[in-house]
């Protein structure tokens, strides 16, 4: 009897322990999924709101209800056809052109500097890295005014010159952003380079035939950030494009929300926001694999 009871209690103790473990896990699962779902809603709502707003028949910003009640495609049609106030298609093409050129120059500059900093040893290497580090601590906005005057002295503040000026401004300083790429290159074994040198490669050949291909994941990340720079920049563009004929999309969208445009343009602003977000979203989805790989690779050591 006592023996049996002991066994039973032992048994039940075991089961309740197991149950406890499972219960805890189930409770944890439910809680974490609830939390994730709640936060996901918070994350998605502003985006859903913009998308729905872009189809809103009422063009003003303040509506009676949270979500629009009547939907139409007019905002998108007007965005691309109504050019007499704000020429969105031209802005879009201009920004795209700037972004592509900047992307190419930026990636090339960053690769060059990162290669020199990571793989070569020469006088002024440390000096250069320190200077860049210190310059990075100066607020960039401080130099916006000065850059405008420099561009003016170069005669690049009018007409087509503005586009060239923007390309110059976004890509010229790119070499200073070499740190992440250098960190990645530091993880490539030196023996790879040494083998190539033994085979008679020059430094340029090692750079173009070994380092660049190995850096591909990081290169994708760099290209992405470089491409997004001109799309997202607002301050520099505002200082350089003084007239509306040279606006980039960021400036155009900001313009749509100023007091005089707001009531007629808010829905079109939402449509424009959706239009410029789509290419970026696609880029991100396609490159997310590379992106995560590279981000983890850069710090793996």
């Amino acid at each position, binding site marked *: 009897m006592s023996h049996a009871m002991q066994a039973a209690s032992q048994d039940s103790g075991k089961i309740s322990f197991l149950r406890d473990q499972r219960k805890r896990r189930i409770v944890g699962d439910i809680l974490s999924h609830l939390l994730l779902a709640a936060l996901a809603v918070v994350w998605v709502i502003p985006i859903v709101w913009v998308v729905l707003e872009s189809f809103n028949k009422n063009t003003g910003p303040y509506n009676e209800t949270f979500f629009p009640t009547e939907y139409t495609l007019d905002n998108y049609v007007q965005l691309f056809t109504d050019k007499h106030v704000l020429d969105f298609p031209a802005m879009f093409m201009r920004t795209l052109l700037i972004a592509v050129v900047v992307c190419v120059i930026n990636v090339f500059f960053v690769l060059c500097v990162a290669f020199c900093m990571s793989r070569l040893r020469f006088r002024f290497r440390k000096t250069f890295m320190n200077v860049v580090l210190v310059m990075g601590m100066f607020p960039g906005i401080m130099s916006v005014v000065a850059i405008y005057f420099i561009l003016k002295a170069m005669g690049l503040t009018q007409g087509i010159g503005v586009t060239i000026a923007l390309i110059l401004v976004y890509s010229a300083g790119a070499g200073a952003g070499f740190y992440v790429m250098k960190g990645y290159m530091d993880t490539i074994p030196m023996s790879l380079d040494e083998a190539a040198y033994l085979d008679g490669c020059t430094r340029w050949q090692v750079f173009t035939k070994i380092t660049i291909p190995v850096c591909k994941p990081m290169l994708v990340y760099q290209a992405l950030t470089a491409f997004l720079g001109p799309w997202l920049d607002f301050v520099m563009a505002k200082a350089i494009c003084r007239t509306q004929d040279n606006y980039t999309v960021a400036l155009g969208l900001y313009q749509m929300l100023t007091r005089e445009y707001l009531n007629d343009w808010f829905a079109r602003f939402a449509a424009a926001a959706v239009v410029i*977000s789509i290419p970026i979203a696609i880029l991100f989805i396609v490159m997310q694999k590379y992106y995560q790989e590279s*981000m983890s690779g850069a*710090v793996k*050591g």
Partner: protein
Amino acid sequence: MEATTGARPVRRGLLRRKADYIPPSRYTLRAALTDGDAFTRLSFLILGAGNIARKQILKGLLFLAVEIAYIAFMATSGAENLAMIPSLGWREQTAEKIDGYWHYTPGDNSVIVLLYGVATIFITLLFVVFWAYAVRSAYKAQLLAAETGSAPDFIQDWRNITDREAQVSLMALPVLGILIFSILPTLFMMCMAFTNYDSDHVLLFDWVGLENFGQLFSADGAVNASLFGEVLAWTLVWAFFATFLNFFLGLFLAMVINRPTTRLKGFWRAVFSLSIAVPQFVSLLVINQMLQPEGAINRLLMSWGWIDEALPFFTDATWARVTVIVVNLWIGIPFTIMQITGILQNIPAEQYEAARIDGANWWQTFTRITMPYLVFVLTPYLITTFTGNVNNFNVIYLLSNGNPTPVGATAGKTDLLITWLYKLTVDKGDYNLGAVIGIFTFITLAIVSLITYRSSASYKDEGGFR
């Protein structure tokens, strides 16, 4: 580049240390002066003379051309630019009536005078560096000609800068870009801090020494010590919360998603990355619209009957400050999740295994294994994020625009140093005060990053990171 065998880590360490040491060059200016022959010494005055004498004709002519160009530049405009710097110009614009028409004679523009002056000093410094390089090159040609019979010709030099001296060809353009578009403008703006270039002195202004710094620490005026202290304090508080709340909440979310029993991991990550895909200025402007008194959020809450009057998102100082920090979470956490997910997967699994066998609970493994690893790897990232947040213009300018701003004040309750600087320069035209604030922003950042970086493990033990 020797291919020695042996234990790899040791060899690598040795190679690194050896490669980092660069022996002093024997082609120094002093040696060129004492040991150089007549042609080399002539090169001190006429660049390229020594090179031409060693049959490096093209190179010598290039050096000479640069010297002539520099002298021509100084003679035509450089000298005048330099002469104007002390006064920054004095001629005012004049208008005369000739034959019934107004003829304007443009006066000096101090901004242009200052810019050209700074650029001239810049060019002169570059020329001095170039001059030293040319002289040393002449001496090098002399020594090489004596040792090997002939100095390297142009083709050999070309090969050299694409191979052994590859940094020259690789870095030339990027460095030029950095010089013109980041160092020159910064120096130029620093000069502004010592002038009276404000809304009252638009065309002509003068050097005023440290007066603007005095203004910043004075008790009264639109820019004063108490306002500066307030903005600085808020900037640091903001940067602290924006950096660490993002880090810890992002870490928490990343770990929740990474739990072994969490389903749809990829889906959750994708949902949280959605906000990255929307350009920041768009999402910030949209959220700004949504949080207006008449905006969508207030409408929604009112229609549900939760509130009777609009919530003061940007009209009450505390509300506004909390709002910008919370909205910044919406923007920043996805980046943290991305970053941390990769790193969490890199922590060696054996460590957790060992800890579990030793009977460590979840909290112990977290504080003893996960956190130290993350902090070690992420310290540089955290410092850059902190620096980035001190200079986070977009979030403040597009979201709250510094509001609420007390009547007559130059900075609002949510203005950071950087947005204050922008308002002072772009909106008010007080470039001098903006420049002073810029310099103080720099000092703040330099101190913070120096202290944190120096005391961090990844600085002390850089080798362990590689």
